[in-house]
């Protein structure tokens, strides 16, 4: 029985096809202005690439910020929707059955989810109204540094000194970065300061619900090698990053679909 999970986030749509307890296909694409069309186009092409017919998919569950855009709407016709929090918990628990805390850092949202028996959500916290605890923060700062976003993590690992970054807002932090650039602070150190700042914000948010081991990091920012070291330091815990961390919510949705 094939099911699908579609995670329509702020920046990317991610799709997972799931069958017999295994992932049988993945697809990811940037979201354009028309969110539903972006998701639908990717869904159609992913079906084609995986050689699956829509009729053969028993159920599609959508998650993510824009999940309603394909709920009961053709061509995807997602039969159900689920919040990112629940999808994160289910997906992470499937990959790491010992997981007790899931941290999901996406483009515009950071989340901490405490999970209990069977992957059930016990408590959660989400950043409020500020991108300073999410991937957009790193993107904005990369633009200020004139560095490709994918180079930000490796660059920060070359840093030789810790520079504090105190601004609690993405916009003000950008001004702080510009000041550091003008003060001739090396880009490596500024990049590290940026990663330290986001790790500090995420950790203080997650600590509100409490951190229990094992801790699993998912979401697109988990792919950034510069983010993991400061987060581990802030939380004083080892952190497991599963393979394909950006697909964990979509996986969770696909598993929920499989459960009926």
């Amino acid at each position, binding site marked *: 029985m094939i099911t699908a999970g579609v995670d329509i986030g702020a920046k990317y749509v991610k799709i997972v096809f799931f069958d017999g307890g295994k992932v049988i296909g993945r697809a990811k694409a940037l979201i354009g202005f028309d969110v539903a069309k972006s998701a639908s186009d990717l869904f159609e092409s992913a079906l084609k690439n995986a050689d699956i017919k829509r009729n053969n998919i028993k159920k599609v569950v959508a998650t993510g*910020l824009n999940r309603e855009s394909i709920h009961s709407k053709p061509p995807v016709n997602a039969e159900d929707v*689920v*919040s*990112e*929090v*629940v999808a994160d*918990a289910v997906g992470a628990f499937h990959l790491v059955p010992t997981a007790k805390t899931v941290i999901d850092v996406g483009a515009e949202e950071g989340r901490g989810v405490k999970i209990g028996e069977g992957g*059930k*959500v016990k*408590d*959660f916290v*989400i950043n*409020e*109204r500020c991108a300073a605890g999410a991937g957009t923060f790193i993107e904005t700062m990369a633009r200020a540094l004139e560095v490709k976003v994918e180079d930000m993590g490796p660059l920060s690992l070359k840093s030789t000194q810790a520079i504090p970054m105190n601004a609690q807002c993405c916009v003000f932090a950008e001004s702080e970065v510009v000041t550091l650039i003008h003060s001739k602070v090396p880009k490596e150190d500024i990049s590290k300061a940026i990663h330290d700042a986001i790790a500090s914000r995420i950790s203080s948010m997650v600590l509100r619900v409490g951190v229990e081991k094992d801790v699993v990091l998912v979401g697109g920012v988990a792919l950034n090698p510069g983010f993991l070291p400061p987060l581990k330091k802030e939380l004083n815990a080892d952190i497991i990053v599963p393979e394909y961390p950006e697909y964990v919510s979509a996986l969770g949705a696909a598993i929920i679909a499989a459960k009926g």
Partner: protein
Amino acid sequence: MAKQVKAYPTEPLKCWDEAKTLRKNYYEDYLNAHNKGGIRWAGGAWTFSAIPAGLGTDVYFITGEPYGATIAFYKDFAAKCHDATEAAGFPRTLCAYMRNYWGAILLDKFILADGSVVDGYPAPDFIWQDHICCSHGKWYQVVKWLEKKKGKEVPMYCIDVSVGYSLEPSEPLEEYKKNYLIQQLNDGIDWLEKVTGRKYNDKLLCEAVWNEIRSTSLWAEICALNQAIPAPLDEKTMYSLYVMGTLMKHRPECVDFYEKLKEETRDRVKRGIAAVPHERFRVITDTQPPWGFLKIFREMEKYGVVSLGSLYTFGLIGMWEYKPDGTWIPKPLPPKKPKTREQALRAIVEWTLNKSEWAHFYRPELKTKMMKSIVDQWRANAVLLHYNRGCEGLSVHIAENRLGLLEAGIQVFPFEGNMGDEREFDLAGTLGRLTAFFESMGLKKIVE
């Protein structure tokens, strides 16, 4: 369309129109007081409002917090008030009700219950206030300044209430503390006679004190009826009902209205009439809601969630006490109606210092205790905590309350916002998080 979930019968409240009329008349009476040959005063909803009632039956008044909330409900006017207050140099971190209130004076406009705005803010003839929190201490001092700039000298009397509280009959307040307040009220009556030139009537005082005691006891009894499943009232509706106690708790109209409401609520319980037809998950909230965004309650109903009330809705006006067995119950009426000034002042001081919302200004763990009692007795499944940036007084220690509730095994959903400043509330984000919370509780949307 509703999916296949058990539905309770529901019906509108019969006394709804009367509630609207009472509130409409209240603001219009204040506005037109001078045209009727009466006088008017201003002060907080927590103040000892029964005392100025001894000046006559043509004394009209406006309480500050409900007025600030009314402004907040009408977001366009609220935005103008915020701008005016900030342009006058006041920071946006202050009490949001207070800023709305000052904004209306600065704009020289007055908003009525239906949202219509009239030119000319009706200045009070005097201010009668008490200091329950830092903001309430300064609120009317600034009102006085603002009115003086417009050419009117408004005399002001403030009562210091910082003597503690009594929640349990077994722990009564010491006599000297009560006497401190009684003395201030006695002095206040002399002051009222002096500034108004009127002779004070003790009979009217006794009536007003007894009305206040009755109305605040009745409201608690109404709230207690919401322990029933299904709940006969939902909190969004209760906001329009409890407000009478914040506007006119000492008035006979308030007592009459709450008598009728109690009977109607009791009848709804008897007949199984629900406020939310698909009730299957019961929550309580905390502190004032973001008044411009009450639609969050309607969104909750789509999941079959009913908000039963809160310590705020129950205890701001309602009077409660702990029984020796630990049950939180409506405070019984004193044995006798006061007949003299001394009896009336003592009665109202003893009654008021029992206010539940008063106690947790002193000790946050008392608030946690009362919230736990509500969760237990009202059979609530979770608590939604509003981290209300607009009210320093009622938000103080709220994070400690969250921890206390979590330790007791109660599910808690905190959200940030502001009761009176719409700029500090993210509706879409809050609804998204609320959806995630309900889903994590195993709920799905029943009604689209």
